[in-house]
């Protein structure tokens, strides 16, 4: 019954989501544009930044760790090593996609029910709070995940188009795959659960978005620590991070259920 209920919440959410053209564009087009835009920045940095950027102190630590992590990269010209360093950040940049979609959609998930005045009728059914919250989180996380993987594919195609195909082997390392297929799903679910918490605690969509905006900072932090070489995400570290976030998904779901106060949601919201 539980699985059926969660599936039905998923299907309903998707029907509501994809009957709105703006929502559909937001989920599909915007992430693709962001990937394209980021690659453009990388290309601009490499072509017009030249030695000034490559030799910047901020990147030296990371460049050294990159050379240590891969003997293949170590023998490349410094310019190509810099390209690989920047392209390696994309596995973390891709984490921003589910996070960004969560800010937009998960925050509306409960607020919209309240605005529609459908929440009270929903809470009068035998649905359990955790089924409702997990269903809503998955309803956002699954499309966000699919579009993230699609963006990863587009990223590789653009690399080929830019004539950087020779670097693809160095980008597609074990950390890349672990990040894409373990870390990204864990972060997607976490983002949407936090989004749903924000949504259930806020009084309106804007308030919910403000609460959820904090999700983005840890992801930016990951990018910052890697690009500066402060922490180098080896496959083992990436795996540990993914598992850690997966465990926190379960904990956050329990927290979300505790924070979802039916009474204050039904009575206080206007």
């Amino acid at each position, binding site marked *: *019954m539980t699985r*059926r*209920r969660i599936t*039905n919440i998923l*299907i*309903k959410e998707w*029907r*509501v989501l994809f*009957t*709105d053209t703006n929502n559909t564009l937001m989920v599909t087009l915007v992430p693709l544009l962001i990937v394209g835009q980021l690659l453009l920045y990388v290309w601009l940095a490499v072509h017009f930044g030249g030695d000034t950027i490559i030799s910047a102190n901020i990147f030296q630590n990371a460049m050294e760790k990159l050379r240590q992590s891969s003997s293949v990269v170590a023998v490349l010209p410094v310019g190509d090593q810099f390209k690989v360093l920047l392209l390696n950040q994309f596995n973390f940049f891709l984490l921003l996609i589910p996070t960004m979609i969560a800010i937009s959609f998960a925050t509306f998930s409960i607020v919209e029910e309240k605005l*529609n*005045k*459908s*929440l*009270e*009728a*929903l*809470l*009068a*059914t*035998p*649905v*359990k709070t955790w089924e409702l919250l997990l269903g809503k989180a998955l309803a956002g996380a699954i499309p966000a995940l699919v579009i993230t993987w699609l963006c990863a594919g587009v990223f590789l195609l653009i690399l080929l188009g830019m004539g950087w195909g020779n670097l693809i082997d160095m980008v597609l390392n074990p950390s890349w795959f672990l990040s894409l297929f373990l870390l990204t799903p864990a972060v997607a679910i976490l983002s949407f659960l936090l989004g749903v918490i924000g949504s259930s605690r806020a009084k309106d969509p804007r308030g919910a978005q403000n609460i959820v905006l904090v999700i983005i900072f840890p992801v930016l932090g990951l990018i910052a620590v890697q690009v500066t070489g402060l922490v180098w995400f080896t496959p083992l570290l990436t795996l540990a991070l993914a598992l850690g976030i997966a465990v926190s998904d379960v904990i956050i779901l329990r927290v979300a259920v505790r924070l979802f106060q*039916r*009474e204050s949601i*039904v*009575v206080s919201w206007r």
Partner: protein
Amino acid sequence: MAIIEACGLTKKFGETTAVEDLSLQVEEGDVLGFLGPNGAGKTTTIRMLSGIIASTSGYATIAGQRTDDNVEKLHEAIGLLTESPGFYDRLSARCNLEFFASFYPGLNASAQVEKYLRIMGLWDRREDRVGGFSKGMKQRLALARALLHEPRVLFLDEPTSGLDPEASQEVRQMIGRLSSEGRTIFLSTHNLAEAELLCHRIAVIRTRLLVMDTGEELRRRFFHRQVVIQLETSDTSVVEAVKNLAFVQDVSEEGNELFIELADPKKNRPELVRAIVEAGGRVLEVTERQHPLEEVYLRLIREEANRDS
């Protein structure tokens, strides 16, 4: 046997008491009209009884199930029509109902959805988006949603509020039909005529439960029964003769009509008519005046307001 039972139910929101010490019982198959002014605690009571919010103190049981324990089980036994219909406007009527039906174990969702869409006269519009429905259609759809799982107890929170007279009548007819099927209905309404038409008993609340009885008993409790005598012409000697009768408690006159309060209307009526005829009055019609429930309600609320002030 009481299917709805509340015992000392109290709800406070901070310093404000929304419902105080509410105790009532509703028998299976009864329709209870739950009346009260705005902010009297009607919706809060319904929310407590349907397990949506918890009481501050006291308890309630619905069909033997505590409302503060295992609410999922409780929700299988009740149907709730909320104050606002509340649907997903971009989804069709069928999709909306199937979604809500999917939460009930062992329910043939598509069959139940078809059954109630047909009953509510919405089958032909089943694939239309709910956003395009009129208020009345949404209300009928909300009623269908409340009934999908065949609940024993229905809570209806102002089901005709904001509807035009035609839509109100449709919803009322539907409630009447549900009542005739033997369902227990807890009907919160502002519409006194509706309550009188549909309900077996009436409860009036203003934070506390003021009264709960049948409409007839409430009238009897608050107003003496009045006999109305229509005369061919008004005649002061007839009025004087009536006033002199020992069992007459009060007499008033409006045109050709006399309004007379009797100690025992059933027993005193023949003697009254004879006295009028003997005094030369020509009686056209003898009827009993029914005080509308509205008068009872207003009197109750005013008395309560005076007591508070």
